[in-house]
């Protein structure tokens, strides 16, 4: 059973547009929700993360929106650029951040930003 469901599988956005990737989870023990960005031939890198005590976190053009009651969270990329073209993974882990072996990853979204 997939712990974190991610959509869409792929996304094409024009330069300057908004990219939105959605994730949903069921396990209420999850307490930490990071997003990872992976370029071809590279390992995933942490992009931004949120805890459920806030509904939104913004870092530059990247924003996480979190809906605790709906158990959903999303990544918004404002003013999308061709350099943002990558695969994005959402993830979730339970309380006690030291449980790194309990990170559950979504299936990934391949973003292509057209010039």
């Amino acid at each position, binding site marked *: 059973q997939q712990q974190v469901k991610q959509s869409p599988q792929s996304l094409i956005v024009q330069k300057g547009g908004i990219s939105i990737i959605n994730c949903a989870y069921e396990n209420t023990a999850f307490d930490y929700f990071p997003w990872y960005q992976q370029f071809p031939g590279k390992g995933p890198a942490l992009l931004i993360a949120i805890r459920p005590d806030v509904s939104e976190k913004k870092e530059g053009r990247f924003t996480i929106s979190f809906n605790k009651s709906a158990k959903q969270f999303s990544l918004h990329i404002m003013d999308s650029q061709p350099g943002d073209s990558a695969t994005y*993974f959402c993830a979730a882990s339970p309380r006690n951040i030291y449980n790194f072996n309990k990170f559950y990853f979504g299936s990934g979204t391949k973003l292509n930003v057209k010039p």
Partner: protein
Amino acid sequence: SAVISQKPSRDICQRGTSLTIQCQVDSQVTMMFWYRQQPGQSLTLIATANQGSEATYESGFVIDKFPISRPNLTFSTLTVSNMSPEDSSIYLCSVGVARDRNTGELFFGEGSRLTVL
């Protein structure tokens, strides 16, 4: 932060052979992990390799197929044994670094892309 180097970056292997992937971290870390990423797929945890203890394998992964060594706090190896084409995948080394008691980060190496013929 942690900088992770993996070797080899890619390899083409024959069915039935074994390959050992090395992972070197630029700082001492307690928690190290091995992931598999099949083409176009998500990340699947193979095992947790903490120094001083036996590796802990996730469901579907066994020590005979994926033996792991963790001789010190900066190094680990993963061996893919008796390879078959189904083992063709990217294998990622990862370390967990706690920033404080509430937050932490997983750092990943660039991966080792294995193709089994």
